[in-house]
Each structure stands twice: as structure tokens, then as C-alpha cells.
């Protein structure tokens, strides 16, 4: 009799364990959430997003740089085992404002340029020049050693262009 009682007890206990595991079937929310977070982390465009899971419903939040990133985050989470539904609360960042165009190059007007180049070449008596539409044309001859200093002076007058027809000795 005693043996039978023990046997019955074991059968009942086994049945109880089976029925409990049926009630809590499917993975736990916490495990699904962890798997979903891992899925998002695998893609650098979605790795900064957050995901939470409750009763199998995954909610993604955070900011994406574009729509493609928002879609791929949803697909990544959908593919996680245990996710029944995805609520996509991801916002897409507004596009950055266009860069301001580079300021146009300031060119000195001819009359002012004429005066500035006159000053610039003053110490080089062998050098003459003409100015037309911002283009400074240098003529005459100069020692090679004096050339860089002359060019530094002439190019700092903000001409459009410097054409050197100098004979360099």
C-alpha cells in the first residue's frame, strides 16, 4: 500500500510540473527583450535605439538618422523569437541644414589693385606690371632670390590672378 501511495504522489507531482510549464509557455519577456536589444546592437545604424518587451509586444524607441534605419530596426526586432508584435516609436532626425556656400573669393578692384601692386613692386626696379580685370601681369627681370618676396607681396593684394612673364636671373 505504501509503495502505491508514493507512486501516485510521483504521478501527481509530474502532472503538476507539466501543467505549470504549459501555463507559462513561450520565452520570458526579459529574455526576448535582451535578444531584441542584441539584434539592434548588431547594426551600427540601430545600435543606439532602445527596446522594451511586455507580453511579447516589443516597443522600439530612440532616434534614427533616416527612414531606412527605422525600417531595419523594426525588421530586426520582428525576427526575434518570442516577439508577437512590434510598436515602432522610433523618430527620424530632421535632415541637417545645407552647408552655407563658401564665400566667394574677394578680388580687389582694378584701381585699388593698381595702387597696391605699385607699392608691392616698388623695391624691385627691374619689374613692371599691368592690371586688367583683376589680373596682374608682371614683366621685366628679377633675381631668383628676390622672386619669392615679390610674389608674396603681389599675391597678398588679392588679385584675381598673377601672370608672371618675368625673366628670372
Amino acid at each position: 500500500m505504501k509503495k502505491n501511495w508514493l507512486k501516485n504522489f510521483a504521478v501527481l507531482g509530474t502532472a503538476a510540473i507539466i501543467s505549470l510549464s504549459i501555463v507559462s509557455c513561450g520565452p520570458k519577456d526579459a529574455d526576448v527583450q535582451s535578444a531584441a536589444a542584441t539584434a539592434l546592437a548588431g547594426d551600427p545604424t540601430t545600435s543606439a535605439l532602445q527596446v522594451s518587451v511586455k507580453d511579447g509586444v516589443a516597443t522600439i524607441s530612440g532616434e534614427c538618422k533616416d527612414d531606412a534605419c527605422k525600417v531595419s530596426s523594426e525588421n530586426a526586432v520582428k525576427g526575434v523569437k518570442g516577439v508577437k508584435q512590434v510598436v515602432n516609436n522610433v523618430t527620424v532626425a530632421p535632415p541637417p541644414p545645407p552647408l552655407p556656400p563658401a564665400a566667394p573669393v574677394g578680388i580687389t578692384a582694378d584701381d585699388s589693385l593698381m595702387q597696391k601692386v605699385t607699392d608691392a613692386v616698388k623695391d624691385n626696379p627691374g619689374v613692371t606690371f599691368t592690371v586688367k580685370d583683376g589680373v596682374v601681369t608682371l614683366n621685366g627681370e628679377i633675381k631668383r632670390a628676390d622672386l619669392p618676396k615679390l610674389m608674396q607681396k603681389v599675391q597678398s593684394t588679392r588679385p584675381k590672378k598673377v601672370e608672371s612673364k618675368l625673366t628670372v636671373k
Partner: protein
Amino acid sequence: MALQDKYKELIDTANSSGVSNLQVREQDGVLYIDGDAPDGSTKDKLWDIYNKIDPDFKGGDLVLNVNVGGAVDGGKLKVVTESSNLNIRKGPDTEQPIVGKAAHEEIVTLVNKTSDQWYLIRTDGGAEGYAYAQYLQPA
């Protein structure tokens, strides 16, 4: 972009040697490089590279306007002529009468920057007037 490739070494050196307010722009077949060099040797180095890439500056496809920045009103400047004295003039123009001279390598005081080309300076001897900025560098 072709010009930026041609002068790449120059642009890279300007970037790596601390040229501030650097602007590199291409317009109508000419490259314009503007900025403030931290010192005279950096400016000289850039011009040496320019001369190497475009011997004797014959190409006419670059306007390099990198000057030694850092000069402030009331600050000290050194006269960097080849060897001669620097004329100090009554006005900002080589037609103006000479009112004084500063010796080669003399240290003078910057009163103000009248323009990119002309600085109003004062010598320790008391002469005050306009001198050509390309012959002055922060001391």
C-alpha cells in the same frame, strides 16, 4: 579639384602646421589659399613648397595669401626686410613722404592695422607712421 591635387602638399602642410582661418577655394581656374600662419618660418615653408610645385611661380594658377597672424594693436613687430631699413611714411601709400626709418630687425610697436598692406607703427625712437606690412612680423 585638379588644382587642389596639384597643390595637395601645400594644402596638407598648411593644415598640419597650424595655419588658422584656412580657406582653400577654386574659382575660374585659379586656386586661392588664404589663412594666418602661426609664424614666419611656416609662411616661408609654404612658399618653398609653392616654388617647388610651380617653379618660379610661372603657372598663374594659385594665389597664396597666407600671412603671419597674431599681430595685435600695441604688440611688438620685427622688421623683416632683406637687409635694408624700412621706410615709415606719412600715409599708407608709397607716394607718401617718408617720415622715419626702422632698421633691419628692429622691434617696433603696432599702433593699428590700417589695411592688409599697411600698418601704422611707432618706433622706440618716437617715429610714427605707416610701414609696408609684408616687412613686419610679430616679434
